[in-house]
């Protein structure tokens, strides 16, 4: 075999690497010691990633006819692309370059310079052995279908859909509830500006409903996702509304006449009624109601049809024969903005929610405050008539609590301060907030806190132990008593109030893990979707073409949700603009003639790239879905799956190089053993 001509480039990274590794010695060692293994040049330079550093590599490739390049610098996560591009510009296939992570794997984790330099030598030795076996690769190009699927039509999904639609591209917006709007549509005021939530949200909802580029599918759910970036095939179930959207005018007479009234647990948080044929709220988009089959007298008992009888349109808009529709659409990109579930305060029994009448959840309180809510905006106790004279607001309910969720829900402090202000403003009651820490970052948030302080709202620092109606002292009778350790004075306190509001935290959707599997993305331990990079790529995911936005990614408030919706839209528009996308060719491949069809790999792929050809009884890998993670490669007991750029030969060569240098040529065993005399006899 013709020996490769390898160039080794050692980066100082300023003092990041040079401070811990003897870079000069390293490059002269590489030039001498590795010469017989194909190294024809080795250099060190202050910043290899700079244009001058890259120039060094490029001119060597041309002048010294290099066939392989090893760059010993930082993690490939940072600059692999930089150096690949440099190789390509000099006419060398970019995949014939290998990086050694001297900064992250050596300099940052060691202090002994001599030992660190020795380790650096071992790593470079491994890389030289490996790079000789690299193969030139070409990226795979896939065309991008311009239509985008947005799942979830809360504020984040609405923002994403509008950004893309306004840019002239088609959007399919899927929402599983009868109306768009999400949680924001249930809120009264938004912090810190105290804008009316509906006033700022409904214009956007109306725009979505009438936008020529948005295909709005409410009362619908995504059932399956196939394919890959640029060419996803999504199957959507459009549930039967039993109301014909083409003729319904949304007049609402059917809802008035419906004799089946039930408590509305969703939109009104259990504080109001709705009929069996309903739309969640008057400004709902779309305006067409749906029939809740489980509570409809006709569907349950076969008689009634009041809605049909009173429907004034011709032809009649009520259609009891309607069936679920299954739609199949092709989309190029997907944005998941599936939102959150509110922490169910019943899970903390000592706070009494669901047991003590005047303990309210934050959502209930939002409905109480809302002018369109059950009390028309009056803050009243559960009896519906009396106004509280004292109110306790408990922060961090279900958040920052190792029994429930460790994380901070990000909205509860500001939400609680908003509640305190609204109670003060509307009732003049004495308000006490119980908090662990007050967290008010972002624009104008802390100013709001200062303002609430000036309204003489009291603050007790300490986690509430219990809310009880068992009076022990005079003045506690008929009240709810909040038992708390006031950590500022170091004492237990019992504070009697008329009303308790539990500022419940944000949780991932109950089915977020199922959704993540369906779309081939991953979740963190709590169930929030995982972004590609927590800082630098917060809306992309490990699956190309699938983006995340809003609370599905982690707890956040409205402004942050809007920002993410817009950011995801920008990313999608970017790929649409390109018309086609180059995919990384570092992939797993099934070697057909080696595959025995054992199906060990069948359900391993986090990206759903592995299929099974029933006819040939062998596994297959969809190259456009494969992200080259290597899970299946290491699992295959027949070594019938090969990882491009991570073949067994390449990995063993790297180990040989690495161990040869670590043990001065001794002790490396990567193949069947040759026993020593001492072991033998």
């Amino acid at each position: 075999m013709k020996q490769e001509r390898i160039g080794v480039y050692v980066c100082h990274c300023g003092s990041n690497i040079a401070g811990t590794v003897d870079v000069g010695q390293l490059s002269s060692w590489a030039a001498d010691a590795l010469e017989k293994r194909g190294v024809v040049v080795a250099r060190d330079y202050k910043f290899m990633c700079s244009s001058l550093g890259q120039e060094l590599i490029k001119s060597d490739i041309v002048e010294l006819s290099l066939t392989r390049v090893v760059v010993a610098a930082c993690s490939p996560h940072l600059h692999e692309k930089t150096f690949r591009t440099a190789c390509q510009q000099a006419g060398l296939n970019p995949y014939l370059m290998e990086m050694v992570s001297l900064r992250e794997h050596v300099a940052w984790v060691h202090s002994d310079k001599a030992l660190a330099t020795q380790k650096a030598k071992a790593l470079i030795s491994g890389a030289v052995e490996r790079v000789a076996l690299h193969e030139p690769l070409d990226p795979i190009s896939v065309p991008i279908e311009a239509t985008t699927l947005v799942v979830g039509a809360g504020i984040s999904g609405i923002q994403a859909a509008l950004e893309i639609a306004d840019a002239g591209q088609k959007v399919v917006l899927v929402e599983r509830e009868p109306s768009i709007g999400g949680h924001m549509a249930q809120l009264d005021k938004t912090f810190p500006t105290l804008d009316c939530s509906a006033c700022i949200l409904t214009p956007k909802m109306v725009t979505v409903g009438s936008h020529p580029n948005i295909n709005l599918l409410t009362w619908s759910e995504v059932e399956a996702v196939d394919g890959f970036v640029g060419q996803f095939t999504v199957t959507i179930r459009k549930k039967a509304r039993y109301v014909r959207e083409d003729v319904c005018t949304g007049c609402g007479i059917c809802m008035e006449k419906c004799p089946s009234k039930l408590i509305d647990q969703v939109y009104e948080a259990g504080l109001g009624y709705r009929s069996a044929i309903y739309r969640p709220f008057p400004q709902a988009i779309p305006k067409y109601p749906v029939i809740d089959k489980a509570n409809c007298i006709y569907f349950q008992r076969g008689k009634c049809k009041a809605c049909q009888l009173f429907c004034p349109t011709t032809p009649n808009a009520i259609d009891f024969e309607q069936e679920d529709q299954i739609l199949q659409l092709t989309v190029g990109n997907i944005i998941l903005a599936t939102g959150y579930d509110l922490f169910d305060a019943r899970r903390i029994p000592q706070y009494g929610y669901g047991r003590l009448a005047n303990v309210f959840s934050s959502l209930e309180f939002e409905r109480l405050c809302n002018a369109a809510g059950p009390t028309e905006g009056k803050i009243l106790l559960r009896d519906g008539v009396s106004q509280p004279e004292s109110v306790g607001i408990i922060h961090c309910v279900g958040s920052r609590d190792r029994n429930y969720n460790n994380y901070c829900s990000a909205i509860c402090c500001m939400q609680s301060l908003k509640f305190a202000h609204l109670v003060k403003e509307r009732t003049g009651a004495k308000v006490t907030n119980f908090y662990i820490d007050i967290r008010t970052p972002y624009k104008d948030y802390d100013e709001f806190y200062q303002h609430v302080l000036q309204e003489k709202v009291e603050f007790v620092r300490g986690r509430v132990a219990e809310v009880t109606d068992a009076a022990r002292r005079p003045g506690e009778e008929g009240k709810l008593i909040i038992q708390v350790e006031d950590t500022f004075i170091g004492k237990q306190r019992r504070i009697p109030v008329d009303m308790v509001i539990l500022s419940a935290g944000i949780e991932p959707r109950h089915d977020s893990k199922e959704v993540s599997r369906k779309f081939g993305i991953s979740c963190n331990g709590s169930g929030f979707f995982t972004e590609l990079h927590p800082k630098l790529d917060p809306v992309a995911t490990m699956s190309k073409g699938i983006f995340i936005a809003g609370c599905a990614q982690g707890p956040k408030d409205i402004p942050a949700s809007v920002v993410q919706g817009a950011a995801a839209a920008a990313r999608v528009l970017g790929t649409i603009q390109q018309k086609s996308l180059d995919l990384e060719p570092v992939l797993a491949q099934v070697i057909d003639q080696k595959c025995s069809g054992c199906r060990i790999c069948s359900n391993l792929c986090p990206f759903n790239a592995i299929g099974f050809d029933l006819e040939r009884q062998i596994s297959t890998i969809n190259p456009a879905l494969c992200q080259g993670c290597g899970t299946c490669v290491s699992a295959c007991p027949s070594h019938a799956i090969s990882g491009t750029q991570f073949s067994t030969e390449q990995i063993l060569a790297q180990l040989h190089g690495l161990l040869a240098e670590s043990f001065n040529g001794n002790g490396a065993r990567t193949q069947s053993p040759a026993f020593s005399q001492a072991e033998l006899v």
Partner: protein
Amino acid sequence: MNQNSKPKLAMYWASSCGGCEISTLNIGENILAVDELFEIAFFPCIADFKVKDVEGYPDGYIDVCLFNGAIRNSDNQEMAELLRRKSKVLVAFGACAHQGSIPALSNLTSRAATLETVYLDNPTLDNPQGILPNTQYEADEGLLELPTFFNTVRSLGQVVPVDYTIPGCPPEPHQIWTVLQAVAAALLQGAELPPAGSIIGAGTVAVCKECTREKEEKQIGRYYRPFEIVPDPERCLLSQGIICMGAATRSGCGALCPQVGIGCRGCYGPPDGVDDQGAAMISALASVMDTTYPTDNGNSLEQQIDTLIDTLADPAGTFYRFSLANAVLGRARQPASPVHK
């Protein structure tokens, strides 16, 4: 055909059970054809030959030597070296010669511990003086010598260069017959031999290819030992939690064991391209552990995995039953201390 122009065949056993010879004789009446095609030069199982006979042959006299058994002691090694010298083509025959097989499992312990188990610490023994074998004994007739019992068992290929390997414990008779016919055709009619180093008399892919059980996606929540479960007759055994090495084992046997409800033991060694059979299987099983979390029983994920692994009896003996001598694992580093009573 002139007796002398017939190719010379030898078959020898080192550290083995004799099953390879039985399997060879199991080719049925074809054994007569073997006698017709070959001149038997050395075959202690069926004919009276002495080592002196072999020593007397010129080097390369034997055309094909089928060598079964592992290298357990100095006699095995001497015979391997002798037969290598006297044979044109040396074939590692069967799992012991191929990768050490059952004898090599003693590499998980030491010579001292093995001898102690065999001669001292065994309920069926009667050895009150605690006599252990010596390599030399002064008898009235003179000095008697026994071979040295090695600390480490090796495969044939680790002792002398091997031309071909026929895997299996034992190799299947129809495979043996096919190979013998091919060898005869090569020697007598000049047919082309497979490239040196090949594994012959076997398939190239894994046993699953030959197994007719229904293959399914796998997620294993616990393992069953054979007595703990009656396997479903249609479904893949591994999917049912029964350890079946088929996925990491070379085909060629016709998937005999799994077809009758016994998990493949792995006797044909790893398929083409796999160096370490046990590691390949362990890696595969680790990938299909049921790590659904949260668990139904309230266990932590770690506990769940530990419980699952606890149902797996004797991992080294299971995954390396036939391949320990050649495994990257090597041997137990420290001689295990003898068991004290």
